[in-house]
């Protein structure tokens, strides 16, 4: 049986850890806290009576919540993003990576460019049926362009603009996603060697 004040100390450590873990799904956070509580209790029960000094030593050996908590997010977020096809999750992860690494920043720029191009093509495909005369793929003295035109020009694709833009959009979105997922492999490698020393 653990004394009330020591139970409070354990709860306070776990609450701190929960705060430091940050944005992970609640069930994952509960799983983490359950595991760490088990670790503390098992250490506490080993080798006789639990004293305050012993509990302090156990928590010290475990590490400060502010050092351990962020590691979960860094490790788990990259892992989830790598197995995800959600552009939001992938981009959020890349943004965090971009803040600490030049390679991450390059990945972020490529990602933003790729997704913007994908969305722009999607926008053109959606707008074509709404503005059939003004949205098109134009050729004139200025060269070739896709978008809105007021002045009369030659629309080279007509209704073919929709499948062409949808295909281009899909290619940009898929290729960008695959590229960022591939790049995130390097984030994991970097992270395993760049986690701040918590010893």
């Amino acid at each position: 049986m653990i004394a009330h004040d020591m139970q409070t100390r354990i709860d306070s450590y776990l609450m701190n850890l929960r705060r430091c873990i940050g944005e992970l799904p609640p069930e994952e956070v509960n799983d983490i806290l359950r595991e760490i509580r088990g670790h503390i209790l098992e250490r506490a029960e080993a080798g006789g009576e639990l004293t305050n000094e012993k509990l302090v030593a156990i928590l010290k050996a475990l590490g400060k919540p502010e050092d351990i908590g962020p590691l979960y997010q860094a490790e788990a977020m990259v892992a989830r993003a790598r197995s995800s096809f959600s552009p939001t999750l992938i981009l959020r992860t890349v943004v965090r990576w971009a803040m600490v690494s030049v390679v991450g920043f390059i990945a972020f720029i490529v990602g933003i460019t790729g997704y913007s191009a994908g969305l722009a093509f999607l926008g053109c495909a959606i707008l074509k049926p709404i503005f059939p005369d003004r949205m098109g793929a134009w050729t004139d003295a200025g060269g070739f362009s896709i978008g809105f035109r007021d002045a009369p020009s030659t629309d080279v694709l007509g209704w073919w603009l929709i499948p062409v833009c949808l295909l281009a959009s899909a290619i940009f979105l898929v290729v960008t996603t695959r590229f960022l997922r591939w790049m995130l492999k390097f984030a994991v490698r970097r992270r395993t060697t760049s986690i701040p020393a918590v010893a």
Partner: protein
Amino acid sequence: MPDENWRSQLRKGWLELAILATLWDGRRYGLDIIRRLADGSDLVLTEGTIYPVLNRLKEDGVVRAEWEESDSGHPRKYYSLTAAGRRRAVAMARESAQFIQQMNSLLEPLLDEEE
């Protein structure tokens, strides 16, 4: 003397493979892995750091985890290698062994000097 940061990075570089190696013969729970790693090595200075690594290895599909009630009264989360994890552990072990061999031949003259 080497600086503490270098030592810490060196340990972290080996930690993932060391964890996979402890699981080679069968499943273990977190504290059991820590005890195995602490047995004859100082790979884990801060015990809590192995749990985020285990969590990531699980997300990567390298290990699987399952909760089980224990005699001690609280449930334990047991980790075991998946088929992909076993392949990864073997590949990492081979690469590491080769690396150690190369480093040993480089370090031999320095170690002789120490003696």
